[in-house]
Structures are given as C-alpha cells and as structure tokens.
C-alpha cells in the first residue's frame, strides 16, 4: 500500500565539488521498518541520512517522506527525528530548555510536558535542569536523542547514536529504539557495530563508494550476525581508507 511507505529514495545522488558522495541510491522503507546501514568511513552513509532529512539538496533524484519531497514542503520535516554523532544542542542551555525549544519549533501542543516526558524516557529527569555543557558526552548524547524524539517523529534517522554511551546507556537506548520500532516508527540506523545494528533491524544494507552494495531483509530466524559480519568485512575490505 502506498500510504504505508515511510521513506523512499529515488535515484538519490549528491556530489560535493564534483566529487560524488552518494550515487544513484534507490530504496523504500515501510512503516515500522528499521534499516541498519553499514559501511566504511567515507562510504556516504551520513550524506545519505542528511539527504533523507532534507539537510542537503540532492544533485539528482529525491528523498520522499511519506511520499512528500522533504525539500519542497517544510512541514514534511516534522516527520523526522535526527540523531547525529554531534549533539546539535546549545551548551549554555539546560537539557530541558534544549528539548523544550525543539518541541516548540515542532509545534508540540504542551512543549514543557513533552520535553519532560522525552527526558524521562531516557532516564534524564534528574539532569533536566543542568546546563548541557556540564553534562558528560554520553549524557549529552541521551539529551540529543530526547530532542529528536520529543515531537514523536514517524521517521527516526540515527547516525552513530551509540557513540559516547556507556553500557547502561546503550542498553537503555536499544530498549527505547525497539519499543519505537514496534510502535511503527521507521528507522535508519548508521553504525559500525554489526551485532548492535542487526539486533534492531528488519533490513540491513552495506554502503560502499556512495552506492548500496547489498541490502538484505531479516530472515524469520533473525540475521546470522557472524555470517553477515564476515560478508561485510570482505565487501568493505578493499574500500577502507
């Protein structure tokens, strides 16, 4: 069903100063899909996420969110939550102020309450009135996730969301992402950790030199992590550096 389509990339291409970063990427994700995207540094994973989020203008093709071109309709961006390895927060403001600001800009009806709920879901209630600059890297990353989730996005784009998180934080994030996936949130998860990515995903892809080199659907028995990791290493082997 067309209405079930959450994300669609159509011939997506992006070049920086004539240097291609993403080359003709096509895929479709339906509601509740979670795509784990693997690839060596410089493969174009972050650029692909930024194109889907509407942060970059494609050189060719289009990124559609629920069949709406995100570059043409600014309201379509309301469907996206984005977590990057950079916090996208204002260090002098508190965790609550940062998340509440995002909620206000997204037009959430009760921004203060929504911000508190989002922070509580990441076990950050006790830190909500502390300035972000005084928080650890891992705590900042959790605030960043709360900021991305405060408006209940239908599509969640996660670029290395586990960076800086300790074991407890990683586990809490995985549990949260599993519950979001089960609620029908569509996710694209960029990670270098194959086991972590495959545990959450319904689809797994490997990106090399700006193209999707392979894309697998989760078998009924789950992904064979060892076999996928071995295949990924052999694919990526010639592309490091």
């Amino acid at each position, binding site marked *: 069903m067309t209405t079930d389509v959450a994300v669609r990339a159509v011939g997506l291409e992006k070049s*920086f100063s004539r240097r291609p970063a993403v080359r003709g990427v096509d895929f479709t994700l339906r509601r509740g899909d979670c795509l784990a995207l693997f690839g060596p540094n410089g493969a174009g994973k972050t650029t692909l996420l930024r194109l889907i*989020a*509407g*942060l*970059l*203008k494609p050189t060719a093709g289009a990124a559609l969110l629920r069949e709406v071109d995100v570059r043409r309709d*600014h*309201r*379509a*961006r*309301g469907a*996206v939550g*984005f977590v*990057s390895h*950079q*916090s*996208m*927060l*204002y*260090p*002098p*403001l508190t965790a609550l*102020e940062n998340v509440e*600001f*995002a909620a*206000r*800009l*997204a*037009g*959430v*009806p009760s921004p203060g309450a929504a911000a508190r709920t989002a922070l509580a879901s990441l076990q950050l209630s006790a830190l909500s009135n502390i*300035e972000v600059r005084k928080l650890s890297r891992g705590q900042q990353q959790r605030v960043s996730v709360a*900021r991305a989730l405060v*408006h*209940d996005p239908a599509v969640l784009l996660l670029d290395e969301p586990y960076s800086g998180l300790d074991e407890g934080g990683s586990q809490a994030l995985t549990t949260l992402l599993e519950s979001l996936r089960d609620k029908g949130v569509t996710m694209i998860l960029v990670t270098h950790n194959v086991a972590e990515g495959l545990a959450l995903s319904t689809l797994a892809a490997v990106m090399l030199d700006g193209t999707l080199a392979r894309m697998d659907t989760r078998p009924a028995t789950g992904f064979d992590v060892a076999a996928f990791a071995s295949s990924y290493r052999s694919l990526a082997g010639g592309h490091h550096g």
Partner: protein
Amino acid sequence: MANPPGLFTAAWIIARKDLAVELRTRSAFLSVLVFTLLAIATFFFAWDATAVASIDLAPGVLWVTFTFAGLMGLQRSFGMEAQDRAIDALLLAPVEREAIYLGKALANLVFVGAVLAIALPALAILYNLPLLVAITALGPVAALAAIGLVAVGTLFSSMAVNTRLAELLLPMLSLPFFVPIVMASSQVSTRLLAGRPLEEAMPWLKILIAFDLVFVVACTLAFPYTLEE
C-alpha cells in the same frame, strides 16, 4: 498532534532562544559593551575640544563605534549554531527557513539595541551633549541604523560562519554595505544635534528608511540560499 508554528511565531521562538543563550553566558554582550565604551573613551581622550566642536565629533564617534561593535556582536549569531552543529536541529524543524533569519535578526537587534542604550548616554556625558536631546535625536536614528546593520550582518554572518576565515570574512562582506548606513546616520544626527529642522535631514532619513526596507526584504529572501552545501 503537532502543529508547526507560522513564520513569525517560529522567528519569535528562535529569537527567545538566542537571547536566553546570551543571557546565560553574557560573554558577547560584555565584550561588545566594553569595546564600545573603550572606543568612545579613546576618541574622547584624543579629542581637542578647542579645534572641533563636540556636536561635530560625537556623531562620527558614535557611528564608527557602532559599526565595529555591531560586527563583533554579529559574529556570535551563527557561531553558536556552528558549535555542535545546532544549526542542523534548526534546519530540521518544520518551519520556513526565513523564520530562522528573522529570529536571528530580531535577537541581534535586541543585542545591538542594548549596547546602544548604554553607549548613547555615555557619549552624551563625555561629549557634553544635552542628554535628553542626544537620546531623542539619536535614539530613532540609531534604531533605523541598527535595523539596516542587523539585516545585512545577519545574512553575512550565516554565510561566513562555515568558512575558515569567518572573523575576517564577515567585516569584508558587510562593511561595504554598511557605508550607506554610516553616511546617512551621521548626516542625520549631525543636523539634529545642531538643532537644524527635521526637513533638512529628511533626504538622508529617507535613504536610511529605504535601505532598511530593501535589505530586510532582500536578505530574508536570500537567506535560504546561504544554507545550501
């Protein structure tokens, strides 16, 4: 169900956030304020009161100081967004890109206005200008000049922030556009401080108003293109 804010509501939300960041740190305001007071005082110590009348010197001192203090303040406008890529979160918001520009410009206007609110009385006291006349004559001109300066400076601040030489590029891009503001403002304020009738200052006042109208509209429309990579 989220209902994204309109252009002006979004601009107000962004302006409030920028002012909250500035209130929390006060670093930019204090450094610009100290620069402004030092510049006014330096000109005062170099001033030979027997050679130049205060009403001839004071407008020049004010507008030169105002221009460079404004540039210092504008640097921080998009600097705070570049840190930790907070600008990405703004660009992801379901609001028009023009709202980001208007919000930033509004916050910058409050910032420049706050500096002027302290600089004008300081100028009046040091240069023996009647305080009430200085504020009533220079205040409205300063407001018009601030709108033009902020309109242009906010746009160029967004363009310069991602370059290696942002601190050099912003003055290089902005200063040629500030020339009409400085010229018109100093001409208007010299005449008003000298007690000349308003009609005499009207041609320059019209230039100032026209500059503001043209550049507020043009910079608002041009802003989204400065964000493309």
